[in-house]
């Protein structure tokens, strides 16, 4: 019925291209294309990716209304959709838990779902239906704030490469079992679990990201790990557990990961590794470890310093080191155990590849200064040592600077950069 303005430019492109275009625009716009012309009526309905994010709901202050509207929209889209759905993502902050979720997941389990991401509104928990465990082709699963209860007969997701569980209510046994039943798992991210003692058996795992209140982490079978990032929070229970533990956590955690390339540890991670460290002979060398980042390290605890020293001396190819001190040490111990450093200086190891070092939250305390001297004296190719003090206290910082100026440097190119506030 329209006047001829020129030939149709786009409708005759191959369906695969049209679909890839439609998957690059918000889902509401994609569905709207069905009223463009008769050719466009069903072009959207076979797209294999459905992403419902915050853009798909009309703006409104009433969260309830918006939530219901989004739920209805999702149901309608699913009903009108044809063909396989490879990716289904809900990350809408207004959507609330609703009965339709069961039906959506059931529908997806029958349509070759490969990637599933479910994150409802803030504070909303929902229950994952059992039909999720029938999604045989699942390659990526990201769940937030839900209750997950794998059936006893569940044999695992045979194709799963990436698993993310954030604030998920699931029993510890079920988590471990789920992880170990996914033979191809390469990337695992688990966060905000309470008091979990986690044993990881994942023969193909490459990337590990953990954050939460962990009592124990045991990497029993994960020899191909390449990247680890751990943030361990503390509770009274966990502190007690640490006190009573007779394990050697360094070995339990890092004893079986020879291919490690990057290690990031936050909050109480170094504390965790320091338990039982006295009795350790370095288990293995980390020949691929090039980056180490450790935060909230307590330099008053020589055991934690020992953890760092063990790590860096076991990593002959270490290039980048970032250490952040613990900024709430108000006053250092009156008699720091400087003998500790005498013992360490007996060994001859040099850090032959270390190029960049960044030390932040430095209070200028004796152990910190000794550590800086240690690094400067053993790093023949060091290029930059960045020091960021935590408190701009003239006295402490002056002391730090004086010591640094005095100490011997193994690298002629080393630049020591001191940051003022």
């Amino acid at each position, binding site marked *: 019925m329209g006047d001829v303005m020129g030939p149709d430019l786009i409708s005759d492109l191959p369906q695969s291209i049209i679909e890839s275009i439609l998957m690059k625009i918000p889902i509401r716009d994609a569905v709207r294309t069905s009223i463009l012309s008769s050719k466009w009526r069903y072009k959207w309905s076979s797209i294999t990716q459905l992403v419902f994010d915050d853009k798909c709901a009309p703006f409104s202050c009433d969260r309830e209304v918006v939530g219901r509207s989004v739920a*209805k929209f999702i149901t309608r889209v699913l009903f009108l959709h044809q063909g396989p759905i490879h990716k289904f993502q809900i990350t809408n902050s207004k959507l609330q838990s609703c009965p339709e979720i069961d039906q959506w997941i059931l529908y997806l389990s029958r349509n070759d779902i490969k990637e599933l991401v479910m994150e409802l509104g803030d504070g909303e928990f929902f229950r994952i239906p059992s039909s999720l465990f029938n999604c045989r082709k699942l390659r990526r699963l990201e769940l937030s704030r839900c209750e997950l209860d794998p059936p006893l007969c569940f044999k695992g997701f045979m194709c799963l490469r990436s698993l993310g569980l954030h604030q998920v209510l699931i029993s510890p046994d079920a988590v471990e079992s789920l992880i170990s039943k996914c033979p191809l798992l390469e990337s695992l991210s688990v966060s905000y679990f309470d008091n979990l003692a986690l044993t990881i058996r994942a023969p193909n795992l490459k990337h590990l990201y953990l954050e939460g209140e962990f009592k124990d982490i045991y990497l029993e079978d994960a020899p191909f790990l390449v990247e680890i990032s751990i943030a361990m929070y503390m509770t009274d229970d966990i502190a007690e557990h640490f006190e009573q533990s007779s394990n050697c956590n360094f070995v339990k955690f890092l004893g079986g990961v020879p291919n490690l390339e990057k290690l990031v540890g936050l909050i109480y991670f170094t504390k965790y590794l320091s338990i039982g460290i006295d009795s350790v002979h370095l288990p293995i060398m980390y020949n691929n470890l090039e980056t180490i980042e450790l935060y909230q390290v307590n330099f008053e605890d020589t055991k934690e310093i020992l953890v760092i020293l063990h790590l860096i001396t076991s990593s002959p190819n270490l290039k980048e080191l970032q250490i952040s001190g613990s900024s709430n040490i108000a006053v250092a111990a009156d008699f720091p155990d400087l003998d500790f450093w005498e013992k360490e200086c007996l060994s001859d190891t040099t850090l032959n590849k270390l190029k960049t070092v960044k030390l932040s939250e430095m209070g200028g305390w004796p152990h910190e200064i000794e550590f800086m001297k240690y690094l400067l004296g053993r790093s023949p190719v060091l290029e930059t040592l960045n020091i960021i003090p935590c408190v701009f206290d003239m006295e402490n910082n002056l002391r730090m600077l004086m010591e640094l100026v005095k100490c011997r440097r193994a690298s002629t190119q080393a630049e020591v950069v001191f940051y003022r506030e």
Partner: protein
Amino acid sequence: MKSYIWLQTADGSIQQVEEEAAMFCPMICQEVLQTGMGSSKAYAISLPQRVNPAILGLILDYCRFHQVQGRSNKERKTFDEKFIRMDTKKLCELTSAADSLQLKPLVDLTSRALARIIEGKTPEEIRETFHLPDDLTEEEKLEPLRNITDDPRIRLLNRLYARKRKELKERKKLKDVEVEEEPKDERSVEDLLSFINGADGDTKETRANKNKKKNRRRKDHAKDLSQNANENDKELNPLTSAYHNGNFDNASASQHSMMQNLPAVNFSPKFEFIDGDMDDDLDPAMKEELDREVEDFARRLNSDWPERMQILSLGQDRRLVPISMNSSGSTHMYTSMFFILS
């Protein structure tokens, strides 16, 4: 000595192109390797029909830039952004041509550009940009149905639920404030040890809360089943009302189809969400009052239904047709319209 490849476009013209640039296109590369064509003018490789000389020129510009190894990602990105600036017609031709030459990076680039053009535009604007014929009838486009929440009674019911939920949330917020807090704790171990025998762990309490929540949900399931059955059916009706659009004139259809109870669609109601977060400490009087109000409304709405059912069955001569996955173009599919514009 530079080597060249001979290419022939659909209009018959033949050009000579530097080998590295041409081989960047998988289709050309494949032809050369498998058939040995392209080495001379007589044996020029025939390019697919969608590639005309002008577009070929553009594609080769793209290939010439990107086939150079040493370029940084930033350089490539800058080039792409400048390269993609052209009128829509050319962009579409380029997409089509790149696809036929299997040059995936260029197809991605052009698709993204086209997506940016489409996004946010009204249907009229899109039609104008791409010269699409406006050939759907008004019926086919369909007026949006009156949104189900326009019915004043249902709105009131929703408001009651919202109020009740808010009430529960306030209570829960007060109780669970420890859970929400950032658990980061930087006290030294000595400090913590001194607290250990004192206050009981936070974690124990929050875990208890969650368990309580879970248990309550299961208990309330049975109780709420009957009460909520009708409300949920109404909410699910929009799905079914779509099917009847074409058969009634819109005014009556929207009124009645909303109320119709649909036997063919089978939903097993799970009510974990509605009263699932009931807290033990909710003021019992308040709870009772709200429960009563909700039940009242449910009853009133129920009583209307038998009459509406009658009116509906008189006008209806079309049964519900189940959606089939691979069908195309049958009348039951034009339901997609009704929610787009709402």
